[in-house]
């Protein structure tokens, strides 16, 4: 669905390339998580995927970015937008109307969605994001998290083939973040939507993504399954990416030779692995009296 070849980009006002020698293939229907330290070029990579680069931010563009068979340099931003739905980092700037319902309608009206279908799409997207009760609210009165949910809902309603989201859960609490990731995973699974998420919450990425891309200083350091990427916890830490605590713990045990199973991506994996290591009988007695946090500690 997305194919990036030898992509290097330098913003007009900057001397050094922000991203360089990027090669990445994202299959249709996959859920890809991109993470990395601040300023590593993650957002620039998303701008290349949704066509904002080169159409809105001028600079030196080398290589090629193909989305659904279209070259982003040769295809207009409006045409690309009918394939790629984007949620930007700055939510206030993304919102163009004053009322929640109008914000939902904006893209649907512009893309010529049948008026008979519009109402159902708005209802579905608002319900999916859990903000159906906010439909008639003035956007200025919403909290940051509610605005973020609205921004995501307004893009989900468009049902694009590709979703590119830049830190979509930055203003959300843990429960809402989990809800958003579950929803994105459902869109990828049920609708075949290709989902690309830039996110700092690596625990969520590793839980839901099919592929984890680690960007370091403008280059892709790792692009593989979460399990394979998280196996490099020491290297990830060096470039400013923290692994989930359960992964770090089990990787340390593996390093010490105590554990030699697959990489653990979350608490459940770690519990299973510890039960395996400690032996079922001993573990059954001990684990029964421990909470998950105590196990990690």
């Amino acid at each position, binding site marked *: 669905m997305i194919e990036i070849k030898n992509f290097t980009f330098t913003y007009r006002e900057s001397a050094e390339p922000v991203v360089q020698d990027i090669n990445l293939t994202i299959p249709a229907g996959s859920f890809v998580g991109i993470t990395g330290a601040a300023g590593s070029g993650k957002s620039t990579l998303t701008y290349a995927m*949704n*066509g*904002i680069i080169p159409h*809105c931010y001028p600079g030196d563009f080398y290589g090629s970015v193909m989305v659904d068979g279209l070259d982003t340099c040769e295809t207009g*931003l*409006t045409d690309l*937008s*009918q394939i*790629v739905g*984007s949620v*930007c980092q*700055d939510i*206030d*700037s*993304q*919102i*163009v*109307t*004053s*009322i929640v319902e*109008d914000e939902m*309608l*904006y*893209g*649907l*009206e*512009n*893309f*010529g969605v049948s*008026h008979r279908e*519009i109402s159902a799409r708005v209802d579905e997207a608002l319900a999916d994001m859990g903000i159906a009760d906010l439909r*008639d609210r*003035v956007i*200025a009165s919403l909290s940051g998290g509610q605005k973020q949910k609205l921004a995501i809902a*307004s893009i989900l309603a*468009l049902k694009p083939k590709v979703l590119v989201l830049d830190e979509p859960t930055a203003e959300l609490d843990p429960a809402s973040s989990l809800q958003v990731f579950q929803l994105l995973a459902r869109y990828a699974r049920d609708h075949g939507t290709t989902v690309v998420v830039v996110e700092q919450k690596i625990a969520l990425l590793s839980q839901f993504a099919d592929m984890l891309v680690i960007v370091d200083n403008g280059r892709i350091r790792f692009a593989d399954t979460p399990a394979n990427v998280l196996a490099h916890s020491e290297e990830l830490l060096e470039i400013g990416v923290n692994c989930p605590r359960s992964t770090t713990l089990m990787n340390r045990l593996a390093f010490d030779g105590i554990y030699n199973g697959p990489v653990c991506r979350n608490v459940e994996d770690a519990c299973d692995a510890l039960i395996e290591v400690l032996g079922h009988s001993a573990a059954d007695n001990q684990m029964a009296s421990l909470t998950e946090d105590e196990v990690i500690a």
Partner: protein
Amino acid sequence: MNGFLEYVPGTSLLHRMNPVAKLLFAVLFAITCFCTGNLVFLCAMLVFALALAASCGMMKQTFGLMKAVFVFSLILAILLIFTTPTGDRLIDLPWGYIGTGSILAAVTTIVRLEAAAIPLFLTFYVTKMSDLSNSVVKVLHVPYKYAFTFSSTVHFIPVFMNDMKGIMEAQTARGVEFDVGGIVNKIRLMVPLCVPLLVSSVRKTNSAAIAAEVRGFNLRTRDSGYKQYPFAAFDVAAMVLAVLLLAAAICITVFL
């Protein structure tokens, strides 16, 4: 009070009226106020405007507007008092005099501006900005980009005001004292803050333009709008009333 030009929800007749009818009524009402200098008629228009405000529960906000308009119109009124030497002589001036006509002209100006402003003010507060822009595109065939520019400008006013508030709070936390030394000191301290506000405003505006474009701004046509804006009987009645008021004002000016 809500933010500047921020929609106030409600179910009054004014809320339910067609946005175009509201806008045309307000514009004709304002023109009517400027078509006559008859103080009695203008006072009647002001009372009518206040009744409209009361009908949609906007009296408090309307008095706030009247206060602001009064300050502005007072400047004009003072100018008129000193530059319109008509009527019975009250006070002699080196270049003329202040007469009863001067006072009447000043009062007329204040009443006229107050009366003309209220319906326009109400129109923006009881109509969703998107309804207003979509309806003028659909009904009056105004190009969408102009309507969008206007609605976006209004949309961003509270955003920029919040930004300014945030910048001022950050400066206050660093020891800048905005609350001492009066308005002059406050303005003096605020001027340097306009630079970061301007930078963030330009950045936000650019991001908003991109956001609109990636959501199909360029594909929008006059028929894209989902909502319909039919004219009901009271919309037609309101416009007929506005025309009658205008005709009455012209008649009073011509025949009295």
